[in-house]
């Protein structure tokens, strides 16, 4: 299908290192012309291939998952529009069409989040779209700033004569990517957006929407260079979300926080300048994360639509194939050797350790990788090894329609890492001391078993459920609270401005005031229509007579 063609060409283009631009001149007006450009290089083609592959899998899956829904046509249309905007954004080299795709993504993801129409979805959708809106504003400002540089393409901004001039644009682009990819100050929306249906989460919130921000930064990599700010933000996000996922009780929120953690890893590698590795991690992460979401969807479906992990247990018996896929993709996420996650995330970590850094950065990186492992194992424990916590004695088995797309994905997620890494990065030279090299692998294997012992301790149970520390860490360091309630005074000020300005003197000068004055003038002008013609004629004739004689 289209995804295979895209992928094949993408990889071919990488080898030949060529880029193809398709231009369509819309119209030219005196000396300027408005041209629509699409870029086809290896990054955009392989990413398009990935997006189409995952979205086709998700669509197959959602036919079974959403069956019985009255508005399935609407859902399919929304997913289709989402894919369209995403592909459009990937294939655009200039900010204006990126903005088109970006806005389309924001809008359609809002529609998809509020798909189940209840209060929680409404709130979630609102915070999603408003956070994304901040990024849209940043891109709009960036467009107007780029008018100084002669082109809206992202290639040309690296050649600008001095960095101070372009630094404002860099700030704006980073802001936009941060809001879209839910980095640290703006990460409140990603766990909240789990109110969307699970296929939507699989497509949107794991692989495509949140990676749009990272993709934008990858496109701007020549302008960004090595960026301290991105490094810090990415590291902070990684740490915070990894920590938060350990205390979270909602299945989809845990997976969302793990997405956030991997996004932080991508940002970190971008901050270090390794944009190709970030892109590679983007591709492979999309595969196994969407698979994780789809498995979670099967679990939720089989438990009667509850998402709480305390209600799960013994799922290996009712959904054996799905739990197999779940375990495999969790292992790929942690970086189990030679699954796809190993090739991408491990490579980033090793390159990270090769450079100079301070102790905190190193510790944070190690700890974040550790957290990846711990929340994955925690999830595995709660779903498979727990006592059966099912509230209702109901368990729907997995259906074959949901399994087929997942099978494709598992195939790709196991093998794609190896294939792509051999293809894209055939020569990698890593020079590390032995203990650093073995650190990650030993951590994975040891903590895997240690965690099962830890989780039974009474102390752990007491900490992890009720204490204040758990509340602080589990709710992402109180970010959702800050993003909503603490901003209320600002919103109240906005209401005041609305009453004073928008409905106040602006109305008087612009809309209503203008029409009132015009009507007044018009009614005064109409008076002449009722004046007798005789007077008018006479005065006119006299006037013309005077003009003649003068």
């Amino acid at each position, binding site marked *: 299908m289209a995804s295979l063609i895209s992928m094949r060409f993408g990889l071919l283009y990488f080898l030949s290192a060529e880029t193809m631009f398709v231009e369509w001149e819309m119209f030219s007006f005196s000396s300027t012309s408005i041209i629509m450009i699409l870029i086809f290089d290896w990054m955009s083609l392989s990413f398009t291939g990935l997006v189409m592959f995952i979205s086709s899998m998700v669509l197959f899956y959602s036919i079974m998952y959403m069956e019985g829904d009255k508005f399935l046509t609407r859902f399919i249309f929304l997913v289709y529009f989402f894919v369209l905007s995403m592909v459009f954004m990937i294939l655009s080299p200039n900010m204006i069409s990126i903005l088109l795709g970006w806005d389309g993504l924001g809008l359609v993801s809002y529609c998809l989040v509020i798909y189940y129409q209840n209060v929680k979805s409404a709130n979630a959708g609102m915070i999603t779209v408003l956070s994304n809106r901040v990024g849209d504003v940043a891109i709009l400002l960036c467009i107007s700033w780029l008018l100084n540089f002669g082109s809206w393409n992202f290639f040309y901004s690296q050649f600008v004569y001095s960095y101070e001039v372009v630094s404002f644009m860099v700030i704006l682009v980073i802001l936009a990517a941060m809001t879209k990819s839910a980095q640290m100050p703006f990460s409140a929306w990603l766990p909240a957006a789990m109110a969307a249906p699970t296929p939507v989460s699989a497509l949107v919130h794991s692989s495509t929407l949140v990676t749009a921000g990272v993709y934008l930064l990858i496109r701007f990599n020549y302008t960004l260079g090595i960026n301290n700010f991105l490094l810090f933000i990415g590291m902070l996000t990684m740490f915070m979300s990894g920590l938060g996922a350990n205390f979270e009780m909602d299945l989809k929120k845990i997976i969302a926080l793990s997405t956030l953690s991997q996004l932080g890893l991508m940002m970190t590698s971008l901050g270090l300048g390794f944009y190709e590795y970030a892109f590679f991690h983007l591709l492979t992460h999309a595969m196994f994360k969407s698979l994780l979401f789809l498995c979670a969807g099967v679990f939720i479906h089989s438990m009667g639509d509850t998402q709480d992990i305390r209600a799960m247990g013994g799922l290996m018996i009712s959904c054996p194939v799905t739990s197999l896929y779940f375990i495999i993709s969790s292992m790929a996420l942690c970086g189990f050797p030679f699954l796809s996650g190993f090739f991408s995330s491990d490579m980033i970590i090793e390159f990270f350790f090769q450079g100079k850094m301070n102790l905190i950065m190193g510790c944070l990186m190690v700890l974040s990788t550790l957290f990846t492992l711990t929340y994955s194992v925690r999830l595995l424990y709660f779903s498979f090894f727990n006592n059966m916590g099912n509230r209702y004695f109901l368990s729907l088995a997995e259906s074959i329609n949901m399994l087929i797309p997942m099978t494709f994905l598992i195939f790709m997620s196991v093998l794609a890492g190896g294939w792509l890494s051999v293809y894209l990065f055939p020569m990698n030279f890593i020079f590390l001391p032995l203990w650093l090299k073995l650190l990650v692998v030993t951590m994975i294997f040891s903590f895997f078993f240690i965690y099962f012992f830890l989780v039974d301790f009474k102390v752990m149970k007491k900490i992890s459920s009720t204490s204040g520390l758990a509340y602080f860490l589990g709710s992402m360091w109180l970010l959702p609270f800050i993003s909503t309630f603490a901003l209320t005074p600002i919103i109240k000020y906005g209401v005041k401005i609305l009453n004073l300005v928008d409905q106040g003197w602006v109305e008087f000068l612009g809309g209503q005031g203008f029409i009132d004055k015009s009507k007044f003038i018009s009614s005064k002008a109409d008076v002449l229509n009722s004046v007798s013609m005789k007077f008018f004629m006479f005065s006119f004739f006299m006037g*013309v007579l005077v003009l003649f004689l003068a």
Partner: protein
Amino acid sequence: MFFKNYQLTFMTTTFLGTLMAVSSNSWILCWIGLEINLMSFIPLILSDLNFKSTETAIKYFLTQAVASVILITAASFTALQMKNYYLESMNFFLFLALSIKAGLAPFHIWFPQVTEFISWFKCFIIFTWQKIAPFMLIINFNISVFTYFIIIMSATAGAVGGLNQMSSKILLTYSSISHSAWMLMLASLSLKFWTFYFLIYFFVLSPIIFAMNFLNFKKIKEINSSKINLKTKLMLSTLIMSLGGLPPFLGFLSKLIALTVAVKTFPMVIMITLVASSLVSLYFYTKMFFNSLTASLPEKKISSSEKKINKFIIFSLAGNLILSNLVLLI
């Protein structure tokens, strides 16, 4: 039907008068042609058998007669001054007379009072045909300060005057005044541009008048009520928007070309005034049909008269919607 059989006699002489005025060498012959036009239009007004038709005829006659007097006086003065070459000293008065004849502001007072009480077809003749002779004669003059004055006044009067009106004939009158401002701007440039604008105006206005005639719409309230089907409403609304000059329709093309052509010669203030007046007049165009499209009233079936209109309107709609976009694609 549009016109009765007995109106044909004087219609021929009306057309004849205009043609004579347009194709003449001297001003006296122009005056003769315009007088023939005037004299044969009066019986057409009187043939309506309204209780106000006498008064309307008198108003029309008086205004146009004053204009003719000024015209013949100025023509005589130019003839007196002419020895070997043509002196342009009387051009101001000739222009003044012709603008009174065409109904440009500030000499537009008679226009709504006349059009209110005559039938739709005569309205159509006043809006289109009676403007041919004055504008074609204005082409001969140079641009002066008085031209600017009349353009700005007509634009303003056309836009502002229609805001408070209720009768659709008077709305079309004020729209004609503001279109005359555009036409004046183009006529000061050359014949080709004015012909283009005038033909488009004719083409856009005729289905509207046809529809109003058949559906018997005298006030805006009647258009806004739901006596007509949704299809007819949509067609009528697109035609009215085209008259107002909204972008993808044909009426916008004429204004766009007028602006691109005239921007080299005319000062910027005039362009801005014309465009602003276009914007304000869009308000009363929208008032004509907006309620019918947005209020939810029970739908009626298509009546037979609507079927006849629809067939006619569809052709003009095709022109309105497609033609302008085809031109822009070049």
